[in-house]
């Protein structure tokens, strides 16, 4: 058996970043993601990398923009209030078609909110949190192993599509420790970065990384191009986990930590003879619409569970077969109260 480590989700993110070849990190302290910068401030200098604690999240995301424009793999991480500050920079990166990885170990809001785990950043993440009508790829890990694997994937997807990619998790996944197999970086064929700024050598073309397009029709064409990329992502990059859905009469759908909690509730239901399954989207953008359409061909009852007041459920409703019913259970996090399997089992019974 390969080596199994016992690490925190946040540390798995940092380890994966290093394995993926990321040597540049820019960030600003915020709970509950500080393990990531703390780990990288220790490890990056040993690898001749750069760790910069920026003056703010606005500073950090713009450092990422600059580093990425030179072609290196780079990242930032934060938590909800800090991610709000980064939205301007993310919009500019999306507009400038710059790769980069942004990790959001989200917490509860709005405003300063609290530091409890929350999934209330779903909309902000998948609907283009900043201005201008763009998307970024959003990956939602549910285990420490996935924190590692999806962070690794995030760097590849960012380079392949020249887009910011977000890893969206919460403190359950971030603070939890589990077994981790630190897989080596996969061999992926990546497009050549012929667009990066490196200093124009005599006889070479000038490179410009920008999001301002003032020429006739230029901006429109640029937007069509971006949205063409989003269509390719929708077609090729949807990922989801299906668990006991074949014979299910009720399918629970949830992402990240909540999907984990729901899984135990589903096992309890199975023990009680109820045919319940789980559809867990792993990519939140692109949203695995087809998977919902497929499962609702057979199973007509969906129960969407979120740690918020109902966000992803809107995308679920748009995705399922017309004759499927979509129910919702969710709540904003309270002081220290996470949903527990017993609570979710009650909901399963209610809608089964």
């Amino acid at each position, binding site marked *: 058996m390969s080596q199994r480590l016992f690490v925190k989700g946040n540390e798995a993110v940092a380890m994966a970043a290093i394995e993926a070849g990321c040597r540049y990190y820019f960030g*600003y*302290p*915020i*709970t509950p993601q*500080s393990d990531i*910068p*703390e780990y990288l*401030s*220790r490890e990056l*200098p040993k690898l001749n990398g750069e*760790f910069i*604690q920026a*003056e*703010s*999240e*606005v500073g950090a995301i713009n450092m990422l923009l600059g580093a990425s424009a030179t072609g290196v793999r780079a990242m930032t991480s934060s938590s909800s*209030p800090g991610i709000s500050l980064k939205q301007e920079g993310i919009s500019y990166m999306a507009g400038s078609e710059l790769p980069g990885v942004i990790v959001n170990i989200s917490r509860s809001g709005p*405003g*300063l909110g609290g530091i409890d785990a929350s999934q209330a950043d779903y909309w902000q993440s998948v609907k283009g949190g900043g201005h201008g009508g763009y998307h970024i790829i959003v990956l939602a890990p549910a285990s420490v192993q996935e924190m590692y694997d999806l962070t690794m994937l995030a760097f590849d997807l960012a380079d392949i599509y020249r887009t910011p990619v977000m890893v969206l998790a919460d403190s359950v996944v971030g603070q939890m420790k589990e077994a981790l197999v630190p897989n080596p970086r996969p061999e992926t064929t990546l497009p050549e970065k012929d667009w990066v700024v490196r200093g124009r050598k005599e006889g070479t073309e000038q490179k410009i990384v920008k999001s301002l397009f003032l020429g006739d029709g230029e901006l429109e064409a640029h937007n069509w191009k971006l949205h063409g990329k989003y269509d390719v992502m929708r077609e090729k990059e949807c990922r989801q986990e299906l668990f006991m859905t074949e014979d299910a009469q009720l399918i629970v759908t949830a992402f990240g930590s909540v999907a984990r909690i729901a899984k135990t509730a589903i096992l309890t239901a199975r023990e009680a003879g109820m045919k319940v399954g789980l559809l867990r989207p792993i990519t939140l953008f692109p949203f695995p619409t087809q998977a919902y359409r497929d499962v609702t061909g057979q199973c007509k009852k969906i129960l969407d569970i979120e740690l918020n007041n109902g966000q992803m459920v809107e995308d679920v409703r748009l995705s399922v077969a017309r004759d499927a019913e979509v129910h919702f259970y969710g709540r904003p996090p309270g002081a220290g109260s996470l949903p527990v399997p017993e609570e979710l089992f009650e909901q399963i019974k209610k809608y089964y």
Partner: protein
Amino acid sequence: MQQVFQRPVSLKDVPTHFCPGCQHGTIHRLVAEAMDEFGVRERTIGVASVGCSVFLYGYFDVDVVEAPHGRAPAVATGVKRARPDSFVFTYQGDGDLAAIGTAEIIHAANRGEDITVIFVNNTTYGMTGGQMAPTTMVGQKTSTSPYGRDHAKDGSPIRMAELLAQLGGVAFSARVAVNTPKNLMDARKQIKKAFRYQVEGKGFSFIEALSTCPTAWGVTPIQANERIGGEMIDYFPLGQFKDTAQWKPQPPPPAPVEQPGALSFPEFMNEI
């Protein structure tokens, strides 16, 4: 005989959440005393920042607005401009004021906002677990400078009191400490002076208070206090860096009220 340890009325009679040996509490008390002295409690609006002092409203018996991280001087600007009769102070940590909020503090100071800023410099981000701050000493180990702050990479600690003193809008800027009875007495005086500036409408006043964070520094309260008197005051000298009553331009006389029909051009047309 004077009772030295009487609780200022502007301060609530509740236990604080600060760690043992933390000087946030002492600084709170001095600020509350100054508030009492000038009798401004009832017209005070405090602006809380994000850091260990975020629960300002729990301790000060005054109205409080909670600002996003670093933005307290901008929020205070809004409060003061909207309610010029109020007494407005911000209370900010070094991460809040000297990192994420650098733009806000510089421009509020430069505009000469009639507010008082209490800046608590404990050379670290206390609340989030002791990461490096812009004021962290060179060589100081924190959770994000595990090898010690490196001057070549991270720059050197910012001396905010001196830096702000350069700005035209700043009327008063001083650095204080509360590590010894003498320094505490001086701090009390300086804070009152800073308050007087605002009470008399003389412009922006700034107090930098050196403070301990035994928790993040990983030392005992006594060792923390010793560090203030040692390496911190060496680098962050105490004293006044500016003490000039500002000339405040008188507001222009109110423009004559025009009749609706007299408006020719909508104002915003010029901005497009």
